[in-house]
């Protein structure tokens, strides 16, 4: 029978070969012509693990590391592997109850499933770490420790300088400037961390890992053949003297205000105190968010960097500049004498500007005693100078001087959130009063640094550097150099000398004389330091808050030593009351002494202690603190969340200091809903920490303010 059907062998063989051919064709199709499968395979089988480099270290001018990194640990958990471990022990070590324990485990499972690791407790304290280390062998393999690099601050000073890191948010992710950041990354949100983000961040590395079907990383692809190594951030050298900074913060304790000290030769910032400040450590570590919210809501506004963001009327410190302009314009000489019979009557009767010292003064003595009439007259002569066809043009000339002195515009400091300040322009007065309807007498208070003039502390310090250098300044900055070179050209602006108007040295000599006399036998005697020739100028600034007159701001600015100046400095103590010489001058004196002598004489140590204890925070702040506290306690977090406050807190991390104020305002606004109109006005006023800088019209213009001394 087999004989008959032998040919069927071939049929069967053909079927076999045919079927194998079909399969082979499909294999060729899959493996050669379909590229999608390779992409799919890489997508699901490979993981690009981003390796974060250490951020750069920051050194002060003496080589101390003032901002560095340290390693802390997160306790991680893989819920699927915790069977058999002693739950009670975990709770005991971490000091949590079993309900909290279960909550965290469930949160971990929801977030990362039970077979992947999740953070159980982030950023362990040293104490918990010590306890854990002893017991870790009992908790394995369900629990383990994971390293994490965080910022460390060896000196508890300079919070406002360094800034802080925060998680990136949706605003940042949308910004093309910050390309490459992903959710969960940390980024510099303020201070140096923000300005020099690119430098400090370094270059991220990438490791390719294989992962399995449950998204667990299994091993490195080809032992890291395709990986790129992370490059650590560049180290930076600041001009800060950390000990001087610490002293400044100590002196400003329990006060609102600021100290800015600059090296006039280089423009390097020696110290930049904004008070109240915060310990920089508060904004790293586990409690970061809680502390941030507290700081943000504090009415004293510790996160607000007063040194660059607060604007004040400069008060009498402004008179030195009037003297420079007057001398250079030739409307006065050093010997020009103006007498004060009690007030400035140059604008007719009306409301005269008072002066305290009756008598007749030449320039040096006018500076020494801060004579209002003298400088009102000087500015009157500048503005009404027949050399210029109109008030418009003469004010424009005056403005040009002010711009040359670094006022009225951002200096370009390497600290974020710098403010413009304000120097009134003809255009501005045209807008307020109408064209041709204003003259010198309309704005005479500007001559003594009140009214529409506004400066930031850094501008005032820079102005002192300008005077100390006899006619030039370099933009104040924190960073002197970057290790490995300034790749992003961030420092190039700081090399340039700014001397827009050439003023002869002789003019400066006269002003220096006056300023030296201020300290030696004038209004600024409190700044005197034995053995150092200090030039200075006091200022006592009237100010209003919500239309109510507040205690005066105390100002003192100066430089030292007179020949070959090494430090230009300014200090403002807000609402201290009394005169500039009372509170601000001694602080400046101590700072100068510390910087030039490297120490404070034993017999003067007492002044430091006295100032450290001196509390000049106005009662208004304490009242507001109470309101915020009660609000925070009365309204639980759910309510705040519903109202959008908590979200606001998170979203505004990036935004400048003003917005913090807005949150505060909004909370207050919601609180007393009824007085909406009034509140709005308040808000506008409150945005400016100083006083009414911009006066809407003549009627509303407050009394012409006198500056005393």
């Amino acid at each position, binding site marked *: 029978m087999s004989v008959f059907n032998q040919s069927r062998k071939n049929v*069967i063989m053909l079927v076999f070969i045919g079927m194998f051919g079909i*399969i082979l064709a*499909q294999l060729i199709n899959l*493996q*050669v012509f379909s590229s999608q*499968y390779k992409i799919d395979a*890489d997508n699901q*089988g490979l993981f690009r693990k981003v390796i974060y480099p250490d951020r750069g270290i920051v050194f002060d001018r003496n080589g101390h590391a003032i901002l560095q990194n340290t390693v802390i640990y997160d306790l991680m958990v893989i819920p699927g592997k915790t069977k058999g471990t002693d739950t009670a022990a975990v709770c005991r070590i971490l000091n949590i109850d079993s309900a909290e324990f279960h909550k965290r485990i469930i949160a971990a499972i929801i977030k990362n499933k039970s077979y992947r690791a999740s953070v159980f407790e982030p950023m362990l304290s040293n104490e918990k770490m010590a306890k854990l280390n002893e017991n870790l062998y009992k908790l394995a393999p369900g629990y383990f420790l994971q390293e994490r690099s965080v910022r460390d601050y060896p000196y508890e000073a300079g919070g406002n300088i360094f800034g802080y890191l925060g998680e990136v948010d949706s605003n940042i992710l949308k910004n093309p400037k910050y390309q490459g950041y992903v959710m969960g990354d940390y980024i510099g949100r303020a201070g140096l961390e923000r300005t020099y983000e690119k430098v400090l961040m370094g270059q991220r590395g990438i490791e390719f890992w294989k992962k399995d079907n449950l998204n667990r990383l*299994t091993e490195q692809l*080809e032992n890291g053949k395709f990986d790129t190594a992370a490059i650590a951030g560049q180290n930076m050298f600041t001009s800060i003297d950390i000990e001087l900074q610490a002293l400044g913060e100590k002196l400003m304790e329990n006060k609102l205000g600021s100290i800015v000290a600059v090296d006039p030769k280089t423009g390097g910032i020696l110290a930049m105190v904004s008070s109240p400040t915060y310990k920089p450590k508060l904004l790293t570590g586990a409690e970061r968010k809680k502390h941030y919210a507290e700081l943000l809501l504090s009415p004293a506004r510790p996160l607000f960097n007063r040194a660059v963001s607060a604007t004040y009327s400069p008060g009498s410190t402004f008179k030195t500049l009037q003297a420079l302009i007057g001398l250079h314009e030739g409307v006065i000489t050093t010997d020009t004498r103006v007498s004060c019979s009690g007030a400035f009557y140059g604008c007719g009767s009306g409301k005269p500007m008072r002066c305290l010292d009756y008598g007749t003064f030449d320039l040096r003595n006018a500076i020494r005693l801060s004579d209002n009439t003298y400088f009102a007259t000087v500015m009157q002569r500048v503005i009404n100078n027949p050399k210029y066809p109109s008030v418009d043009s003469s004010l424009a000339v005056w403005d040009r001087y002010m711009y040359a002195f670094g006022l009225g515009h951002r200096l370009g400091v390497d600290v974020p959130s710098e403010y413009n300040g304000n120097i009134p322009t003809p255009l501005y007065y045209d807008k307020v009063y109408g064209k041709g309807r204003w003259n010198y007498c309309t704005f005479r208070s500007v001559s003594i640094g009140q009214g529409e003039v506004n400066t930031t502390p850094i501008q005032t310090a820079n102005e002192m550097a300008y005077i100390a250098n006899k006619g030039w300044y370099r933009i104040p900055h924190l960073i002197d150099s970057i290790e490995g070179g300034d790749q992003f050209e961030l420092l190039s602006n700081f090399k340039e000398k700014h001397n827009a108007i050439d003023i002869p040295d002789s003019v400066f000599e006269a002003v220096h004389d006056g300023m030296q006399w201020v300290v030696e036998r004038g209004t600024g005697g409190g700044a005197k330091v034995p053995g150092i020739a200090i030039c200075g100028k006091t200022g006592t600034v009237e100010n209003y808050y919500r239309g109510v007159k507040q205690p005066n701001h105390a100002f003192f600015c100066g430089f030292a030593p007179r020949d070959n100046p090494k430090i230009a400095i300014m200090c403002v103590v807000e609402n201290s009351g009394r005169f500039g010489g009372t509170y601000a001058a001694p602080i400046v004196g101590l700072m100068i002494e510390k910087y030039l002598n490297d120490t404070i004489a034993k017999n003067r140590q007492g002044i430091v202690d006295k100032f450290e204890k001196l509390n000049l925070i106005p009662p208004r702040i304490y009242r507001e603190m109470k309101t915020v506290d009660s609000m925070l306690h009365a309204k639980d977090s759910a309510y705040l969340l519903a109202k959008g406050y908590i979200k606001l807190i998170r979203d505004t991390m990036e935004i400048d200091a003003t917005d913090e104020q807005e949150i505060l305002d909004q909370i207050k606004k919601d609180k007393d809903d009824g007085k909406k109109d009034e509140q709005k006005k308040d808000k506008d006023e409150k945005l400016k920490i100083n006083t009414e800088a911009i006066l809407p019209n003549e009627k509303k213009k407050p009394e012409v303010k006198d500056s005393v001394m």
Partner: protein
Amino acid sequence: MLVWLYALIVIFGIVCIYSVEYKSTDDLWRTLTGFKKNYSKQLFFFAACSVLAVFILLTDSKLFTATSNISYLVGIVLILATFVVGKEIKGSKSWIPLGFMNLQPVELCKIFTALALSKYLSMPEMDFKKPKSQLIAAAIAFSPGILSILQGETGLAMVYFSFLIPMYREGLPGFYLISLIGLGSLIVISLVLPAITILVSFTLIALGCIYFLRRQFRRNRSLLTLIIAVWIFSSLIATLGVKVLMTKVFKPYQAARIYSMVGKTNPYIDINTANLSAKDLEQIEKDKRRAQAAQNYNVNQSKIAIGSGGITGKGFLKGTQTRGDFVPEQHTDFIFTSVGENFGLLGTGVLMIVYLFFLLRIITIAERQRSTFSRVYAYSVAGIMFFHIVVNICVTVGLAPVIGITLPLMSYGGSSLLTFTILIFVLIKLDADRQMVLR
């Protein structure tokens, strides 16, 4: 010759299982002898099978003919026994637990069926042209498969179709096979196309045939009857038959697999949903999609793994997909994916050629047998292996619905390796005695 090919494929299989389970931290020697990992177990199975192979080669060939009927009966009894003592593994209650391993009688019964069929067809007075003997042969070949379908193990049951190959070789009219294939393609078409399209096109084809063949009808009346009969039958299958098949014969998951093969969702799954609320319908829709996704997951992952191998593959132990456990059942039914990913088209192509060579070699051996028993048996072995190889690889490359069927000699599993070892070595022993006339 076959022995060497056999050993080559089995060792290559172990290598592939190793590549699936390999972890860079493992100490090869310790795990290989540790008996914990699948590849070390498979190595042990291989050793055991080798011992068994030696015993088979030492046996007298007459033993196989003598015991074929009784062993077939034992096999049937074992399958029946699973109804009582069966252990459920992966959805089918077709396993008998033996302590050290689980035995699947349907798997073993392939051997007994092959022997019994050979015995029957080699009977001295056999006339395979008689429909009666064809029916008996079919009964012998298919009854284990039918029993196994009743247990819910469809994949293995379908292997018994492969006995059509030796039967065809022994004279089963080609008409049967053609109509069977025709029926199969008819079902596939009716799955893909809507019933009305099929009805219309069938009617058009029938009318066309009648028109062109109208001259012939005078001479051959039955031709017209045949055309009309085929037309009525096909239409019935296309409209009602498939529906009955999908709703009554197959379980929903099987129907879903078949539909996913042709790229469709099962339209009969919600056959009784007319009076359900919108919410329920939504839920059903969701379940359906989830089931669909799960079904497609296996095939998708397998295609990704094979496709990502490219021409030369990623290199031994360098596959990301096989190592990441993305492909389910990777060491058993989907072992071919690790070949595809690690060794690429070169690897899969060479493996296919080795298998094809193996099969053609068996056919050559079959044709040189003097006794019908040996020849039928050899064709049975070739048929079974062919079916296993083709269906398994078609599943992994997405040409067939997911059917749980092993790749001969490569897939992990003692039961499967044991069966194929016996099948092949009995053949080798019979071939060694090919001068004897065995009945």
